[in-house]
């Protein structure tokens, strides 16, 4: 039997657990903000329909948030169970950033979540609205700190390394607002809002198509569309700026995600290829001349470094970043197209009656999640072979644990997450199906007391 490699298994486990986790924040960051807007509209206009929609989506929020919490706790411990050398050597920097996430974000969310979910009848309206604001603000703070920690690992700044290889912070501002952080933060928050907008638009369209809760469905679709029409193109721009930043600080990552092997001046844009790290070339390449240079340097013949200009031990394997990047960009373009078509239909007054477009909206509804995953795969696999770019190799960051332990835990996570995810999706689908038109107070009460009613208990 071959030796089980704790490094590879730990990487797979981390990739699996964090991919699972990121789906929920991607959704709840946007949803929390939207719920605030809905409650504000309700408080301002007094129209009950906004409250009904908010009530309905709060239940979906609760399930997603719960899954985000439990899968997030796992990550805070995996830094030790699987990446203890990263913790030991990088703890002075990433530790405080994560501690601030707990102190400012997690407690804020947890403290006000109860009031947001269960408190509408117990506290004044403004307290409930305030609680919703705090939860939404908490999700953004959480993103701020954890993306700062991740960005430090991508583009470290404001640090020194001592004789024992331990990182120390020389300048907190530089370490926190490190070179890639502003771009990553803007790109991720926009991604989260887009992901939510597409889900909301898709479900709103579905209600209209099904001729159920049509009034609510129209508000959902209208609100979502009015966000994504401008945010989808803006996201492309943010992504482009993020890419230029990576070109400056992580040129090997850009070479990998573009599958450029040779350094050159008028680099083509490779539309499709199969990168072959062994032969250091691409198979089945389909490329547009000059376009690569133009996109990356915004010049017709800008120079781009190829993978071969980096020593083999410092290169990321291009296969995953190359394809993941293309999936992300492809989805981004689809999102822009949906926004443009939606805007045209809306302006010409046909939005709610064009069934073909409503159907498309239901199909593309989950694409945001796929784009988020693809984007993170691009960023994280593209950072390899480093955990902290240029400072700590992934091979040196791993914990001294046997491969067998990691394999066992990986299998457990796959099984448990499979069940939890399946059940979560099922219950969310049930909530969506029940729709917002049913009075939720009654619906929920009936549901939770049904077994008692059945057994004849009063």
């Amino acid at each position, binding site marked *: 039997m071959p030796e089980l490699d704790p490094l590879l298994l730990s990487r797979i486990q981390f990739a699996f657990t964090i991919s699972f986790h990121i789906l929920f924040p991607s959704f709840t960051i946007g949803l929390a903000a939207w719920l605030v807007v809905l409650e504000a509209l309700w408080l301002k206009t007094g129209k009950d329909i906004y409250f009904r929609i908010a009530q309905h989506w709060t239940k979906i929020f609760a399930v997603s948030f*719960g899954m985000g919490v439990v899968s997030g706790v796992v990550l805070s411990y995996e830094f030790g169970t699987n990446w203890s050398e990263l913790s030991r050597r990088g*703890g002075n920097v990433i530790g405080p950033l994560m501690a601030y*996430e*707990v*102190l*400012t974000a997690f407690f804020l969310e*947890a403290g006000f979540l*109860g009031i947001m979910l269960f408190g509408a009848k*117990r506290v004044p309206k403004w307290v409930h609205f305030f609680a919703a604001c705090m939860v939404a603000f908490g999700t953004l703070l959480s993103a701020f700190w954890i993306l700062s920690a991740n960005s430090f690992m991508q583009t470290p700044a404001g640090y020194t390394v001592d004789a024992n290889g331990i990182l120390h912070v020389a300048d907190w501002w530089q370490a926190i607002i490190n070179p890639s952080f502003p771009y990553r933060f803007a790109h991720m928050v926009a991604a989260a809002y887009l992901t939510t907008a597409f889900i909301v638009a898709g479900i709103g369209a579905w209600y209209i198509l099904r001729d159920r809760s049509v009034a609510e469905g129209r508000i959902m679709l209208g609100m979502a569309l009015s966000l994504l029409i401008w945010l989808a193109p803006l996201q492309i721009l943010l992504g482009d700026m993020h890419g230029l930043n990576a070109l400056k600080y992580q040129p090997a990552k850009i070479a990998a995600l573009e599958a450029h092997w040779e350094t050159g001046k008028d680099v083509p844009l490779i539309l499709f290829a199969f990168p072959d790290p062994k032969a250091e070339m691409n198979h089945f390449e389909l490329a547009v001349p000059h376009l690569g240079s133009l996109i990356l340097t915004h010049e017709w013949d800008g120079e781009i470094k190829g993978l071969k200009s980096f020593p083999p031990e410092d290169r990321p394997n291009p296969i995953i970043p190359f394809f993941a990047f293309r999936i992300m960009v492809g989805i981004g373009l689809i999102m822009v197209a949906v926004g443009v078509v939606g805007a045209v239909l809306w302006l010409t007054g046909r939005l709610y009656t064009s069934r073909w477009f409503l159907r498309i909206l239901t199909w593309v509804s989950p694409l945001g999640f796929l784009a988020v995953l693809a984007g993170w795969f691009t960023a994280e696999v593209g950072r390899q072979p480093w955990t902290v770019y240029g400072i700590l190799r992934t091979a040196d960051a791993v914990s001294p644990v046997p491969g067998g332990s990691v394999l066992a835990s990986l299998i457990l996570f796959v099984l448990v997450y499979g069940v939890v995810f399946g059940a979560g999706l099922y219950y969310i689908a049930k909530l969506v199906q029940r729709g917002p038109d049913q009075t939720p107070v009654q619906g*929920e009460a009936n549901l939770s007391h049904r077994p008692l009613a059945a057994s004849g208990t009063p």
Partner: protein
Amino acid sequence: MTVGSATAVTAILPVILPLVWAAILALAVFLYVLLGGYDLGLGALFPIAPSDKDRDAMMGSVSPFWDGNETWLVMGGGGLLAAFPLAYAVMLPALYIPVILMLIGLILRGVAFEFRFKSERSRWMWDTAFAGGSLLAALMQGVIIGAFVQGFTVTDNKFSGGAFDWLTLFSMTTAVAVLSGYVLLSAGWLIMKGDEALREWAYGIARYALIAVGIFIAIFSLWTPVLHPEIAARWFTPAHIVMLSPVPLMTAAAIGGLWITLDRRYRYLPFLLAIAIFILCYTGLAVSLFPFIIPPHINIWQAAAAPESQLFMLYGAVPIIPIIIAYTAYSYYVFWDATEHDTYH
């Protein structure tokens, strides 16, 4: 400030900061043990609860809080990484299996809060997940405390032992001890929050749990000094006996007092006295281990993060922690009578 005194402050920070952070983390872990304790204990009591209605009430009494309770555990883990990275880096690989099992348990019981009330036919499944997950998490936390007291093999600042070093008779016993402590806490919680029938049932549970807790405290008061001669020296040196004797004496008093309050059917005192017992045991443990954070190799100063990192976090922690405690208290106030599962809105 003169240059001289500035230097003095710089010199004293590496001594003071680890003490401050050890105190903050001790508080976070203690709050978790308390809040997570009654919370996990409820799960462990779930299968033997008298009726389905009581199960609804038990879960309803904690659903607005479980997320906040668990956040103290994240604070404990994240805080350890931030303030004592070396301790975090040694402890978690050493405790790989129990930590992963604890996390799995927490996932299963955590999602049960959301899923249970949405399910109909599959409710038994989430009841099982809630009870099994809580039980697993509580037992693994007990194992972790036991293995921590036992100590880890460390070479060159890295854990160098085996995958099953944590699995000993000692840690198995601490597992059951912690579980019985959690059950005592949650029985105290139900005595405060339950209706009359549930309360009566909880008084009975609390008695059994109290007997178990008393026996375990006696066992560990003897076993731990036998395991570590330096702990024995600390407690049983003549000079220390008088100074430290209040801890065991007050523990005995709290146990006796709790028994009486259960007998006389007090509503709030049992929970408060159960907390007192936890505080005293925790103090006893701190006295035994201080200043080691990886007993008996690494102390808090050796494991500490750089002073600038600990200081940077302190600027946030000092104002924020009281605010957290304040709004947590507000949330408990708002939901104090929430034994029925509250509907959303």
